[in-house]
């Protein structure tokens, strides 16, 4: 590089940086509400409808629960965020525990969201629900083979050896399921269950869609999936050879988790933020949950037809504190059992 381009490059760089710092950088007027969201699906549609109805504009940054939480912590009182939205009850519980979420008092929300799907202090509210249950290939499995009182534990039975596919230990879905099993059965019994899965040579898949495709292809007979992945895959391919079995219909019920939100402590627009959450839990339920085939948390709202076809199910009551508190133990237990 001859001297001139080198100097030119340096000068250009400095000018550029100065220009960037000077003019507030990219993007025009900020929206009324700014959201940190670990949930990405269908947000534009739902928020757009909210803006149409209320005139309140919304913008969001997507990311991952834990990372957005660290960002929120580091930004402190300066944060631009008004609402924190995650896809895991444990994360919501953790954010509340760290004092990042404001306490709300809202009769609307208390009426719309079942008690176990919201924080007793009003720091967060569940808005969409997903179930994690058993899926199988009907050519190779008769659903009468499943244990009806504790289906997850039943998969540890040696009759499933070489027939199981599940998600990896790094997956939040696996961890949260195991945390709820620890809450239900205690550590010792849960360790026995997970060891049983491992002893059955469970095949570990790195994502739910590949898992469903493997069941469809018949390379595994039984798996554990989020219900909405099956709904979506069935929508694309109605001939998919995968059926759903609601785990533990006569026992504790099927494991569920939520996407939910809270108002950020220190939000400069808490009123509108609360209004958005209230809208999402009521009029906004369908636009918020239907596109991703999730269940509305609000019992007065109907699920979309694709998942309604899966039938009614009994859900395990959600204990957010256990999800938050026991998740670390679940990670440890999975490692101890040799589950990857």
């Amino acid at each position: 590089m001859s001297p001139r381009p080198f100097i030119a490059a340096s000068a250009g760089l400095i000018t550029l940086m100065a220009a960037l710092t000077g003019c507030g950088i990219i993007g025009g007027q900020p929206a009324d509400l700014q959201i940190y969201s670990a949930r990405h699906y269908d947000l534009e549609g739902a928020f757009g409808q909210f803006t149409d109805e209320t005139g309140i504009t919304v913008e969001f940054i997507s990311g991952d629960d834990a990372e957005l939480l660290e960002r929120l912590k580091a930004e402190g009182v300066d944060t631009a965020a008004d609402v924190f939205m995650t896809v895991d009850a444990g994360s919501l519980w953790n954010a509340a525990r760290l004092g990042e979420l404001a306490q709300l008092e809202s009769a609307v929300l208390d009426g719309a969201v079942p008690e176990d799907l919201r924080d007793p202090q009003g720091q967060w509210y569940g808005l969409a629900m997903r179930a994690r249950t058993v899926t199988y290939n009907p050519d190779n499995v008769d659903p009468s083979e499943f244990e009806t009182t504790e289906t997850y534990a039943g998969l540890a039975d040696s009759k499933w050896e070489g027939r199981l596919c599940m998600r990896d230990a790094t997956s939040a879905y696996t961890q949260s399921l195991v945390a709820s099993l620890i809450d239900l059965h205690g550590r010792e019994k849960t360790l026995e269950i997970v060891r049983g899965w491992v002893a059955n040579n469970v095949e570990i898949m790195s994502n739910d869609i590949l898992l469903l495709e493997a069941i469809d292809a018949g390379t595994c007979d039984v798996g554990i999936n989020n219900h909405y992945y099956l709904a979506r895959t069935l929508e694309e391919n109605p001939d998919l050879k995968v059926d759903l079995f609601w785990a533990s219909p006569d026992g504790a019920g099927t494991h569920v988790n939520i996407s939910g939100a809270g108002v950020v402590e220190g939000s400069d627009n808490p009123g509108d933020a609360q209004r958005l959450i209230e809208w999402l839990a009521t009029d906004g339920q369908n636009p918020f949950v239907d596109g991703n085939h999730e269940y509305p948390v609000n019992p007065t709202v109907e699920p979309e037809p694709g998942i309604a076809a899966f039938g009614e199910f009994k859900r395990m009551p959600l204990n957010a504190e256990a999800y938050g508190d026991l998740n670390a133990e679940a990670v440890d237990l999975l490692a101890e059992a040799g589950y990857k």
Partner: protein
Amino acid sequence: MTRRTVGANRPVWTAVVILVALMVATPVLAVVLDGVGSIGEAVIPRGLPEMMLTTLALMLGVAAGTLLVGGGLAWLVTAYRFPLRNTLVWLLVMPLAVPAYILGFVFLSVFDVAGPVQSALRAVLGSEVWVPQVRSLPAAVLVMSLSLYPYVYLLVRAALIEQSADTYDAARTLGAGRGRTLRRVLLPLARPSLAAGLSLVMMETLTDFATVQYFNVQTLSVGIYLIWKGTFNFHAATQLAVLVLLFAVAVLASERALRGRARYHQRGGRGQSIQPEQLRGARGWAATTLCIAALAAGFLIPVLQLLAWAVQEAVENPGFLADPRFGEYLVNTLFVATVTALACVVLSVTVGHGMRMSGGRIVASAVQLTTFGYAVPGAVVGIGVLISFAAVDTALERAGVPGGTGLLVTGSVLGILYAYVIRFLAPAYQAVDASFAKIPPTVTFAALSLGAPPRRILARVHAPLARPGVAVALMLVAIDAVKELPIVLLLRPFGFTTASVWVYELARENFWEKASLPALVIVAAAVLPVFVLVRHAHRAETGRRASS
């Protein structure tokens, strides 16, 4: 330390190098302090020894793989002529344009149990046919080697071309065979480049998070995320990050060791490059096939698969193609990549020059500090930037500045650019330093003795002589920055999205058909600098040939 520095006691340049080092190292140090400061509080995760072994095995495996593929191909295209060689020489760099997180997913969807390959096998050979486990360490080594080999290929090839044919011919006339000459003369001379390439590859492997997860390989970087997200314990995660950093120190130390104490600058003018030998008939076509196989696995197959998905998506949902976000995100992506590349190069040349002007232990250690960012996973660098600015804020407010720095980091793209520079200064410096290493100290001495001040030497001597390294550095950083995901995800301000974030949002929900279009945008954006890089190398090569 080799005699790569000239004189000492130029405090200005010492200060400049130390300043750059501090700026770059502060966020990494913040993470280290957090990790070290909370030892005893956080539990050591079960399975840590296994994670360490896995990490080591993966790094060594990928190093061996890239050495074999990248080094082998570099030798093949430099020493021989065969059909399509002139085109393949530059096409072989193309896998750089495909982010490993995209390659990994495409590989799995093609080769895993429900993919077309195994389905076809089962259809032909029955359902009990044995196939090797796709989600495994060896498969991860294979895919990462195919994705990362261009680093070694580029650097080794540049080193082979830069070597004058005189040395090579001397060895040959003295009776050494081609292989022996390669082993005894060329490889030792190419050692700095080889070491630089391999250390880049090993650092990339160390910090990779997305690819290894597809293959269910639990490395330390996966461990960081597992602990951070799985236990809600950030301190336990930073402790693992410190461990990752120790691995990186080991890599850098071995790179130094591999470079040895020798000097590599060749005396006198550069002579003619090695003259390639013609491979005829079947041997020639075998060479062509080898190159095409590497290219297909690392570039053609994944891009074709993405195209197939994209076409499928475009047919089902034609409106998607006209989405204005393609243009907006592409511009954003290119913008951060360009600024980052320029910033990294300016800093690298400054540091390289400062090192030459003012040697000594302190400066050398400071230079080492600047390269650690590459060895820290992107999300951890991002967090480091966040927590160090939070600390500055607190300090400022205590000192009576209301509001401190405010939302300087996450309210603008400055945070992203800063974190990018931390992360990618190492590859830039490696490339620039490799060029500096070849500038004989006598040249600097001569300039100094003629009374030129250091600033003038930087502009008139060092920067021009480091030009090959500068070009490589610009392109390597630009390519890396186009593909980067975790930092931009964490630090971007409202209203700023890049193509990689879009891919992430769609891929996270497993919308692969939809994600294929923005993924192709990334590949296209990365092909641009790859192409320039290759053109530059090509011109340099033909220029040398013509001048000799």
